[in-house]
Structure formats: structure tokens, C-alpha cells
């Protein structure tokens, strides 16, 4: 399959299928995240990249036999390894034995949050989630370091001209998007704060929020989006998310408990847990949304810069051709 566009679309379908598989496996939180991330953001980023790097694959490699051999040997070894494993769905498998019953049985008394996944993510294993938030932040910084473009300030007349021409071309979807985007943002807030009682939480909310902003950017132009959403403000939000998370941990340390031990935040331990979980989910949501927006803006700005460079080079070549033609014409 040489057309990378079709490959990326199939990858999106694969992400959606695996999300529905996760629903069949009773993993609703994971299905939510995979549908938002794998079928949405990942496909979008890859499409932006293949618009910059070329749509067709140029194959010159003709030696798949050694790769097939390696893959076959590894596959057989792995299948041999699975013969010892417990059967699918068995209730007495080793992984259901040690820690999980404690989480399931004691989560209501110790934390008081119905969604066990949120309570494990935000309270029992808050340290791992802290590491994850820092990894996301680092990825955002990395993309900024690789792809940031110094932009010249655009005059508002150019922006208005682009806006008017785009408005006529894409009338229907711009109006529908203007109706829908507030609801998408509202849904993101709902998912953020409802993560205690149903599937949801910081990650999904952040991704949905970023998806709404990216929809706005795609339809109304990068320049308009930049005047609406200030770049330095978004970077500040990303940093504030990580800081919020870390300072909750620091506050628990200073109040006399362990790192991320929310019981000591407020007098009542259950209320302390609720407060701690809400604060760190807020931090996670802020960072994830801001980093996704930063990544998309960096890619889009780079694509715009490449287009402008190509246009400038074409204009220069045209001027050279005109100069070469003039002495011969007169």
C-alpha cells in the first residue's frame, strides 16, 4: 500500500476498533481515552505530517525474507510463552489476587469515589500519574524545540481577507462548527469533573478540549486562532498544570503526611481525598489540553512556513524568468 493517506485513515479505523474492543472488555475509561486519542488526535497529527512530507511511499527495498524470518521466530517463541498463561477471563488468575481486591473492596471507605480507576490513578498511584504528566509536558517542550517558527506579525487586513474567502468556500461547516464548539468545550468540562462518578477524568477532558480548539483552528485559519488563543498563555497553562500537581504533593508533605497523601490536606480524610483528586485532575487536564494545542500549533506553523518558503521561491524563479525573457523580447 503505497498511499500514506490511506494508511493513516486505516490507522484511525484501527484505533476506533480497538476502542470498541476495550468497551467489550469492560474497560470504559480506557476506551474513552483510546477513542479520543487514537482515533482523533493521532490520525490528525499524522495527516498534518504527510501533508508536509509527501503522500506516496517510494519503495526501493526488496529484501523482506530476513525480516519475515525474524518475525516468525519471535512469534513462535511468544506463542510458546503463552502456553503457560491463565485462560482469558479466569477469576483466579494471579493478577487478580494481590492488590486488586484491596482496591476494589477498600476504595469506597478510604477514598469515597465510585470510579475505582480514578481513585487508583489519582490517589493510590498518584506518583505514577505525576511522572506521566511530566512526560507529556516534556514531549510538548520537545516539539516546541524542534518545530518552533519565528513569525512575523500579520496585519489584520490580511487576516480579514483570508477569513472572508474561507468563509465563502466552507460556509456550511463553519456555521455548524460555530454552533458545536461551545458544546464540545462544555462536554470537556463535564468529563473533567464527572470523572469521579463515571468514565472520565483529566486525560480525556484535556484531549476533548484540545480537539475543540484544533477544530476551530482548522476551520478559521491559524492566524485567527492565534489572536484568539495567545501562544504564551497556552505555554503558561501547560506549566501551571504540572506545577499544580507538584504543589499538591508538596502541600501534603508540608502538612505532615507522605508525598501525595491527601488525608492530611483537610481535617476530614475523605474530604481531603476528594479535594486532592479534584486538584490533580485539574492539573492533568490543563497540561494535557495545553500540550496537545501546542503540538498542533507547532505542526501547523511549520507547514505554513514551508508553504510560504515554496511560494517565495516560486516568485523568485518567476522574476528570474521574466528578467531573462526581457532582453530577448525587445
Amino acid at each position, binding site marked *: 500500500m503505497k498511499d500514506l493517506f490511506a494508511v493513516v485513515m486505516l490507522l484511525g479505523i484501527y484505533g476506533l476498533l480497538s476502542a470498541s474492543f476495550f468497551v467489550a472488555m469492560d474497560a470504559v475509561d480506557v476506551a474513552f481515552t483510546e477513542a479520543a486519542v487514537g482515533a482523533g488526535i493521532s490520525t490528525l497529527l499524522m495527516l498534518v505530517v504527510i501533508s508536509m512530507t509527501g503522500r506516496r511511499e517510494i519503495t526501493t527495498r526488496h529484501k523482506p525474507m530476513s525480516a519475515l524470518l525474524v518475525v516468525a521466530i519471535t512469534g513462535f517463541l511468544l506463542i510458546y510463552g503463552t502456553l503457560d498463561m491463565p485462560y482469558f477471563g479466569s477469576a483466579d488468575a494471579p493478577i487478580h489476587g494481590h492488590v486488586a481486591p484491596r482496591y476494589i473492596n477498600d476504595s469506597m471507605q478510604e477514598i469515597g469515589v465510585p470510579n475505582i480507576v480514578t481513585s487508583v490513578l489519582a490517589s493510590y498511584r498518584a506518583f505514577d500519574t505525576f511522572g506521566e504528566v511530566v512526560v507529556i509536558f516534556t514531549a510538548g517542550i520537545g516539539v516546541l524545540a524542534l518545530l518552533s517558527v519565528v513569525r512575523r506579525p500579520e496585519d489584520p487586513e490580511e487576516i480579514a481577507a483570508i477569513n472572508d474567502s474561507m468563509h465563502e468556500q*466552507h460556509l*456550511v*461547516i463553519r456555521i*455548524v462548527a460555530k*454552533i*458545536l464548539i461551545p*458544546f464540545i468545550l462544555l462536554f470537556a468540562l463535564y468529563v473533567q469533573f464527572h470523572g469521579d462518578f463515571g468514565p472520565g477524568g483529566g486525560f480525556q477532558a484535556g484531549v476533548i478540549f484540545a480537539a475543540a480548539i484544533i477544530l476551530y483552528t482548522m476551520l478559521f485559519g491559524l492566524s485567527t486562532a492565534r489572536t484568539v488563543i495567545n501562544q504564551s498563555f497556552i505555554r503558561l497553562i501547560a506549566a501551571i498544570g504540572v506545577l499544580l500537581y507538584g504543589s499538591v504533593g508538596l502541600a501534603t508533605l508540608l502538612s505532615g503526611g507522605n508525598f501525595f497523601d491527601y488525608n492530611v490536606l483537610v481535617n476530614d480524610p475523605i474530604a481531603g481525598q476528594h479535594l486532592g483528586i479534584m486538584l490533580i485532575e485539574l492539573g492533568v487536564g490543563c497540561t494535557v489540553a495545553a500540550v496537545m494545542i501546542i503540538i498542533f500549533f507547532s505542526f501547523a506553523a511549520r507547514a505554513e512556513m514551508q508553504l510560504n518558503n515554496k511560494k517565495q521561491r516560486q516568485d523568485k524563479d518567476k522574476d528570474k524568468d521574466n528578467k531573462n525573457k526581457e532582453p530577448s523580447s525587445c
Partner: protein
Amino acid sequence: MDIVINISSGLCLFIGSFLCLCGGVGMLRFPDFYTRMHAAGVTDTLGSAMILIGLMIISTGFLVFIKLVMILLLGILIGPTTSHVLAKAALHNGLEPLLGHEEDPDTDNKETTS
């Protein structure tokens, strides 16, 4: 009363799944991109609307009902929009629709006279 609710909900669900199946078969069997898109649009909009109405009839609580209504509104708004955007993108990039063989007497006359 229970029997009526159950039967009507079952009927809506059955119609919805039948429409989805039709959409799937249509996507495989239609000859052209634009006709295939119509099949996908049917699945998206009407199929899911019927299934949601069937679920709404047997919904257990007021909150569930309201959530299903919102999903239905969203689906009705987004389905035709995506079909429209796909068709516009395809036309913009030069994909011509497969038109039928037209027996037009005016063009035949023009060809014979020119």
C-alpha cells in the same frame, strides 16, 4: 402498556440495525464515491437515530433520557455535515461523479448539425 413499549422499542432497534446493515452493504456495492458516501450518511444519521429512539423508549431514568436526546441531536447535526464536507472536498479535488448515460435529443441534434 408494557407490551406496547417493548414492541415499539424493539421495532425501532430492528429498523435501526437493518438500516446500518443496508449502509454497510451499500458501501461495498455502490459503484461510485458519491453514492458510497450516501450509504455511509444513511448509516450515520438515520441508523443511529433509530437505534437511539429505540433506546429512549425503554430508558430507565430521566437523566438517561436527556443524555440520549442530546446524543441524538448531536448525531443529526453532525452526520449530514460530514457527508457535505466529504463531498465538497472530493469535488474540490476533481473527483467527477459517475453520471448516467443521458439520452438527450438536443445534444444529438447539435452534434449532427455541427
